[in-house]
């Protein structure tokens, strides 16, 4: 199907129509209800739905638009996420030049991803930046507490930039012509990841007593975790049409994405707990910061990419 001059596979059109349809229905219903009987919860719901609109339109632009647009958008999201994580972390004044350098790694990393320089992409942050940032810190000559900064800055770069930039590599992955292309893969990944959050939350609310990580995030239960990953596996199986995967492979992908989503969420929760913050920022109304939304996708993206390479490139 042709949308705005871009050839869009029909599977994508179906999924995106459903998403935008649900959002429209939600927006309309919440507004009607709020007009009849205004309440704080409805205002909150409307704010949240508006943010979802924003996110959905951004994702649609990445999926449908040209690869360069997707690269710029996702690269900017990485930048916002890194800025957010650096803003809440505790640093020394001597770390400023290393912080500056870490921002510079973003355009380079996304350029490598866009061009499909796979090897350089793989080692740029884990090797060059993981050596470069400590070297810059050493050159400032301030050694007190330097070890913390040496590990903190590259790790934040890893979480926000390296992980997410794998999304752009999906554009240059060789997928069979009869599939829904890179757009389908991205939609598959985002759907599995975000619905996994919803499933884990819902299962945890429905039945769940035994906490899985009581000291990190007290809301997570074993029932939520297990119910979540099983439901996500089934979702992955149902969405196999978006990918060139077989049913069995899509099921395995859904399962692993569920586990990874949970782990990513827990990592960010632990960082927030250490800093005694509820949200990483107040950027997205009703959702908190960018990292509060991205927490699960940062781990699912690279794992999904490498699973695809393993399954398809055989």
């Amino acid at each position: 199907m042709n949308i705005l001059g871009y050839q869009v596979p029909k599977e994508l059109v179906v999924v995106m129509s459903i998403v935008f349809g649900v959002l429209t229905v939600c927006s309309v219903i919440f507004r009607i209800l709020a007009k009849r009987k205004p309440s704080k919860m409805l205002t909150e719901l409307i704010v949240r739905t508006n943010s979802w609109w924003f996110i959905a339109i951004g994702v649609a632009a990445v999926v449908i638009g040209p690869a360069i647009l997707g690269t710029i958008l996702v690269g900017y999201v990485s930048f916002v996420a890194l800025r957010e994580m650096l803003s809440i972390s505790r640093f020394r004044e001597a770390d400023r030049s290393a912080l500056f350098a870490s921002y510079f790694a973003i355009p380079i990393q996304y350029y490598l991803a866009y061009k499909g320089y796979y090897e350089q992409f793989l080692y740029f942050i884990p090797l060059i930046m993981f050596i470069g940032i400590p070297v810059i810190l050493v050159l400032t000559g301030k050694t007190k507490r330097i070890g913390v900064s040496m590990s903190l800055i590259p790790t934040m770069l890893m979480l926000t930039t390296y992980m997410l930039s794998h999304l752009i590599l999906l554009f240059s992955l060789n997928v069979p012509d009869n599939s829904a292309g890179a757009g389908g893969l991205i939609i598959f990944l985002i759907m599995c990841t975000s619905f996994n959050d919803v499933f884990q939350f819902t299962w945890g609310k429905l039945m769940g007593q035994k906490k899985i990580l009581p000291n990190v995030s007290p809301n997570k239960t074993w029932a939520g975790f297990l119910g979540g990953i099983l439901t996500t596996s089934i979702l992955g199986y149902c969405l196999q049409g978006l990918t060139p995967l077989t049913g069995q492979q899509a099921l395995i992908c859904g399962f692993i994405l569920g586990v990874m989503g949970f782990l990513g969420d827990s990592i960010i929760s632990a960082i927030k707990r250490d800093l005694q913050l509820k949200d990483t920022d107040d950027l997205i109304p009703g959702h908190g910061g960018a990292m509060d939304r991205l927490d699960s996708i940062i781990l699912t993206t690279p794992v999904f990419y490498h699973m695809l390479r393993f399954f398809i490139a055989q």
Partner: protein
Amino acid sequence: MKKYFLKLFYALIVRPWLQLIIGVRFENRETFDGLNQFIVVANHNSHFDTVSIMAALPSSKLYNTRAVAAGDYFGKTSISGSLMSLFFNAILINRNRQKGQPSTIDILDGYLKQGSSFILFPEGSRGKPGVMTDFKKGIAILLEKNPGIPFVPVYLNGFGRVLPKDKKFIIPLICKVRFGEPLFPKNKDVDSVLNEVKDAIVSLKNTDERDRNQFDF
């Protein structure tokens, strides 16, 4: 001419740059609705403070709002002086006043009488990062001389890390410009007014918010 230049310059360049790249957030800008003349008072940590407050003002108020800068620092060359007055409407004040020259208070009071608004940092210079120094008396005297003009307190958080004192380059980190409601001083004597102004700024800091004007270690 300059009026439209300032509007466009701030709307197309300064505000997008501050909000999208640096990460500056403006809170409660509606406080200026219906205000004609005001004195914005803020805590001072960085050279970045003035441009951020200017950008946070509604476009219609830009032309009439002036910043005050130290002439002996910013006016060293005529180029930097004219740039300051072009972009910030800045008035350059010489801190080492010769005998016979009008005092700073008189100069500012004259501009207020002509209808200008001001951005003032009652701490004077930027001082130690994150520490609010004692306020200079000038703000209280100006408010007393112009009882019809309210002051608008601002709490700036984060600018001391974006561009600390004595540092050359800016790094993007989230920072906030939070406006309070316009206030008229209740007391008459200078010291009580100064305390009122200081309390108004401090009260804008949320209790659960970390002071990000300084680095942690």
